[in-house]
């Protein structure tokens, strides 16, 4: 049992849950306490100790039955037992007309024999089940096993058998009964296959080596990421954001204890006869206001998505964020983030502004911004531009950028390209550069995290 639980935990990990050693220890403690006899209690004790996120509950509920179901295939009914010898004889004769495979199958169904472990393994080998490591394949793999057993033909054979038997003068009512039982047995075999596939996949999952080294991915440039890598990084962003958040929060907190606030100190210490027991410090407004403009054209998409995820994961450290996305024109995307997780929100924005139909026009975007949203920028605002500055030879509208830069507290450009590529081809980066307080290079997630850390400084 213990081994089974350990396998279960590693399958959970393979599905992207972060289960720590301490938590698995808790799980074992809980099980020692409550026992494994009652399935529901057992399930609850595992769930309460291993899963700490609502979103992960689904994964748990999916995997649990695969590991801890009773492991017995659904019952098959032995038809042959209650046939009269005469009936059995007729059926045996009728079956003889089919080919070898169908004869075997019908025999199995008649006697209610489940598939043996060996047969199952052979089938699995045939369809390549040993390579399946995703639960979404369960249904498909089961269907392929059914095909390998030629279920469809068997179904037809049953019909044929019935017809033959009817000609042999068997009682129609009795015949109907036999047919139903045969079909039920076939369905049960299908269910057995399905369970077997599920368990095999689950085992494959727990044997899977851990995902590609996350540290290497963190340092891989955005334009070299596959969609699968990206999926891993999306999860990773949450963790990075949490680390970043506590770091920034601590910094904001420490920064509070700066200057003495004499007024507040005198006021609070009136109750102590004006003896300054409690010192009050001036609480500078440290939480920045952010305005983020993200280029989400194909080349910049991953970078912008991860950037927005990071920023929105840290909402409690920022007094206000206004986010915009653009390719050739500006879209206000803050409302998309309300009440959603960052990656869902980014997904919905990306669906609304698909790539591929038009090319980046930074200049027009800036003039959009200036005419509609310039009031979002005041002296406390940090203006962040995420983009590569590649403008497809359109008018760069540097003048507007300068106005924005002058109105804002700080202007920061986050660019995935290294300095050496600026100004090459259609890049207008050098024209914008003089008006930026800081230009941060962020070509990998690690660099991006460092950049966000810096801009919340």
């Amino acid at each position, binding site marked *: 049992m213990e081994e089974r639980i350990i396998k279960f935990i590693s399958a959970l990990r393979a599905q992207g849950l*972060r289960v*720590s050693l*301490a*938590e698995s220890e*808790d799980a074992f*403690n*809980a099980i020692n*306490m*409550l026992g494994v006899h009652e399935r*529901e*209690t057992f399930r*609850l*004790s595992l*769930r*309460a*100790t291993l*899963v*700490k*996120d*609502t979103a992960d*509950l689904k994964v748990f509920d999916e995997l649990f039955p695969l590991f801890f179901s009773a492991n017995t295939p659904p019952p098959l009914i032995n038809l042959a037992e209650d046939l009269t010898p005469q009936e059995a004889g007729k059926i045996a004769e009728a079956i003889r007309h089919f080919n070898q495979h169908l004869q075997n199958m019908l025999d199995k169904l008649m006697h209610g024999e489940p598939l043996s472990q060996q047969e199952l393994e052979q089938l699995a080998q045939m369809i390549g089940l040993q390579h399946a490591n995703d639960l979404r394949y369960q249904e498909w793999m089961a269907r392929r096993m059914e095909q390998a057993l030629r279920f469809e033909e068997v179904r037809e054979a049953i019909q044929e058998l019935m017809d033959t038997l009817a000609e042999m003068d068997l009682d129609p009512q009795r015949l109907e009964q036999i047919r139903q039982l045969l079909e039920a047995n076939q369905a049960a075999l299908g269910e057995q296959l399905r369970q077997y596939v599920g368990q095999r996949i689950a085992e494959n999952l727990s044997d899977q080596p851990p995902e590609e080294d996350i540290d290497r991915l963190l340092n891989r440039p955005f334009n070299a990421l596959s969609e699968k890598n990206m999926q891993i990084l999306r999860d990773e962003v*949450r*963790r990075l954001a*949490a680390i970043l*958040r*506590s770091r920034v*929060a*601590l910094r904001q*907190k420490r920064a509070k204890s700066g200057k003495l606030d004499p007024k507040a100190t005198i006021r609070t210490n009136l*109750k*102590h*006869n004006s*003896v300054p*027991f*409690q010192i009050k410090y001036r609480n500078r407004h440290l939480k920045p206001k952010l305005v983020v403009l993200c280029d989400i054209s194909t080349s910049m998409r991953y970078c912008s998505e991860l950037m927005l995820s990071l920023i929105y*994961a840290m*909402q*409690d*450290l920022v007094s206000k964020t206004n986010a915009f996305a653009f390719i050739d024109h500006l879209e206000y995307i803050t409302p998309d983030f309300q009440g959603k997780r960052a990656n869902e929100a980014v997904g919905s924005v990306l669906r609304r502004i698909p790539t591929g139909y038009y090319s980046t026009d930074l200049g027009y975007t800036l003039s959009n911004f200036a005419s509609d949203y310039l009031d979002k920028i005041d002296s406390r605002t940090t203006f962040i531009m995420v983009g590569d500055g590649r403008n497809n030879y359109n008018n760069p509208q540097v003048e507007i950028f300068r106005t924005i830069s002058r109105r804002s507290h700080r202007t920061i450009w986050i660019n995935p390209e290294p300095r050496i590529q600026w100004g090459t081809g259609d890049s207008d980066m050098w024209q914008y550069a003089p008006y930026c307080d800081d230009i941060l290079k962020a070509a990998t997630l690690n660099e991006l995290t460092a950049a966000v850390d810096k801009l919340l400084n």
Partner: protein
Amino acid sequence: MKAFKSAAQIKDNLQKQSYIASEEIATIMYLSQQLGKPLLSEGPAGVGKTELAKAIAAATGRELIRLQCYEGLDETKALYEWEYAKQLLYTQLLRDKLSSTLSDSRNLTEAADRLAAEEDVFFSMRFLLQRPLLKAILSDQPSVLLIDEIDRADAEFEAFLLEILSDFQVSIPELGTITAKHIPLVVLTSNNTRELSEALKRRCLYLFIDYPSSEQELAIVRLKIPELAPKLAAQAVEVVQRLRGMDLRKSPSISETLDWAKALVTLNSSNLDSETLDKTLSVLLKHETDLTRAKRRLRQLTGEPMEPDEDSGLGQFRIQN
């Protein structure tokens, strides 16, 4: 003050406190008690997370110590604070005694030494203002500590909680480390407005409380508001369950169902006709847009003629008929 022997016993005892606990709640609560681990309960607002802590306190006969979290909550509000005013008052009142103690000292060093010998008096439990966390740790009797809406507190407060939740001890520089006499039963609640840190989650057992099924909800309504006619209660619960299925800005929770049931009793309603609905639905839904959509939908369900509207789904519905 008793420890429960099984999950079923917890369930029964909670029922006596008019809290209907599902199997899941009772089992995880029992685990929390047995393992001495805090319980983190998450779920939509108003499904009875806070109530659970209150009910378990009442069921065990333990004292409920509650810490309500908010942005800016810090140690002095959550853990302890020296009571400066009282210290000052005591120094004033004890001035004579102090001067007599110090009067016959020959030099300054000796006077300072004597004073130092007495300083423990001023940094003792007497002058320590106990906030909820310290109270739970110092309590002579086992208690229930409720840390409510932890997601509202800042991230650094969460980090500060870690020591307390894993070891049940605090260090006060002037007094040393204080360890809990009895490990309190800790319940944390969160509305999931922000993600909690993994370190905190790791130390807790996790319980997700969702909206109840209609049988459970009916049982809750019947238990809490017995005056409401059974038939009306069933209808009311059905309406609420249906509203939850709609895409609303704020779905009604159990507490709102109960408020609504109370309103129906107060208004002496005998039937859920559209007039009663119109009058009382605002108890259930707190957004104007939700309210209009819900009314339209309910009217459609009760089969009364509808006004033309722009809701596309309904438009299609009518064409089909």
